[in-house]
């Protein structure tokens, strides 16, 4: 069997005596859409941090696209085709919106484009194309520090897309958005499928998770308690217990 795009096995992370992640396995196939859910503090963001390298895990391995990336620094992993958005938007506040996207285009996308490195001019064109897709085109020249929360979240996703990833991790991109804005972002993430990009969606909004995911994994207190189709997971008694209590 071909190796999945991402295979995290036995990932463990502890802060002192507190185990944020305890022996977690997670696989994502090429172009798969995975929903990652769990109550607050269950370790979802920590897992993302361990996969992208902003935190070093204490045990286990992370393999991506056929190689062990456990020892790579974050930017090295991003350059292989991982990308993430942040739960709390982190725009490059002094730059214009379009320039925000040119950073990952010139650094990350250019790195795995091989011989077809992206020039400064191309980066602008492609950045504008992505902004058109997410609906931020009209604000391309505005300073990103002054955007509204909704637009910042869109920018956060757009910047992840601009890295031309093979796997995009969206960390609560929809928290606090209205229902129609949630639909916008789901549509945007579904479009990634057409490009063959795998997506891990971390989300609390169950409507979005159910609509989007082909498969759902559930974390609770640092352990994976379920992994299956959305219907299976919702019917799982362990999951119901984690969310609703006994």
């Amino acid at each position, binding site marked *: 069997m071909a190796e999945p795009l991402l295979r995290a096995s036995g990932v463990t992370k502890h802060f002192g005596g507190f185990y944020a992640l305890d022996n977690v396995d997670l696989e994502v196939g090429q172009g798969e859409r995975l929903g990652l859910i769990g109550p607050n503090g269950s370790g979802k963001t920590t897992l993302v941090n361990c996969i*992208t390298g*902003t935190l070093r895990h204490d045990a286990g391995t992370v393999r991506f696209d056929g190689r062990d990336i456990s020892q790579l*620094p*974050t*930017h*090295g992993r*991003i*350059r292989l085709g991982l*990308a*993430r958005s*942040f739960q709390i938007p*982190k*725009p*490059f*506040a*002094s*730059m214009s919106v379009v*320039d925000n996207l*040119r*950073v*990952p285009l*010139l*650094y*990350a*996308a250019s*790195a795995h484009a091989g011989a077809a490195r992206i020039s*400064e001019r191309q980066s602008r064109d492609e950045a504008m194309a992505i902004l058109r897709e997410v609906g931020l085109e009209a604000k391309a020249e505005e300073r990103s520090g002054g955007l509204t929360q909704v637009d910042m979240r869109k920018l956060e996703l757009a*910047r992840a897309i601009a*890295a031309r990833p093979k796997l995009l991790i969206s960390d609560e991109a929809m928290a606090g958005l209205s229902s129609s804005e949630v639909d916008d972002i789901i549509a945007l993430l579904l479009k990634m499928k057409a490009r063959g990009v795998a997506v891990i969606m971390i989300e609390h909004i169950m409507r979005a998770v159910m609509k989007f995911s082909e498969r759902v994994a559930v974390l609770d207190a640092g352990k994976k308690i379920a992994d299956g189709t959305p219907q299976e997971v919702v019917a799982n008694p362990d999951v119901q217990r984690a969310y609703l209590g006994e």
Partner: protein
Amino acid sequence: MSNRRFALIALVVAIGIIAASLTIKNAYFFTAAYAVLVFVILSTAWNILGGYTGYVNFGVPAFFAIGAYTTVFLHQLLTAPLFVNVVAGTVMAGLAGLGVGYLTLRLRGVFFAIATLALAVVMLTFVVNWTYVGGARGAYVITPREVPFGMESWKHYLYVVMVLLATLATVVARMLERSTIGRGLAAIRDDELAAECAGVPTLRLKLLAATASGALMGMAGTTTPYFYAYVEPTSVFNLSYAVNSIAMPVIGGMTSWVGPLIGAVLLGTLQQIVQVTISSNLNLLITGLLLVLFVTLAPNGILGWVDAWKRRRKR
């Protein structure tokens, strides 16, 4: 504007400034202008790490001194010519920037600033105890009798050299700023974690900025021993180099190469005028007052102020 075009224009401007200086007979002008030019280079250099990348370096005197003392050392050793000293001092300070960067750039914010402050103290102690370069007594660097290119005085000649070096520093700073590297540096300044997650090799770029910044600071120091003919630690390691090199970009504007240039020319000239007309002790007081004024009223410096004014006019 392309880099080559800008470099060409900068060179033409520099030659214009040099040509104009040929008509000046007042020798004091060169002393004053030299001091301003030192600050043009220092603040441009400081801004590469401080303004573009967001890492505040208080160790300016250390790098400046590495340049000056490389000249002293090579002069003692083999009476090396000016050109050799300029190159050697620049390289040494660049290496120091790389080394210090490697040790300290993992620190963020205020911790980095403290580490660079410590560097200046360590370097001062080192030089004071190194008798070969004069130790605490200082060292003389006697310039030859004849001035190169048949110029009137060494001071005038060194002024010309400094105009060219300042031009070089400005061209390098602008080139860095407008390149892909410059985008990476700006990303680091805005949010280092987000930059790393956009594929920017943050440590490597910070080291590059520290090296370029240190090298240019050292370059500013290489001509100093010739100009004053005498070098001693307390003047080379003077705090005013650190304070001014930070204040000038802050006042001019830190996001672009023009900012430090404007800041250094304005503040530097003002200081020189005050020194002659009012008192030589008011220098740092003026710097301090202006710094407080700008940080509270126009935190983005003169450039930011101009930008805001342009935006208001557009509406």
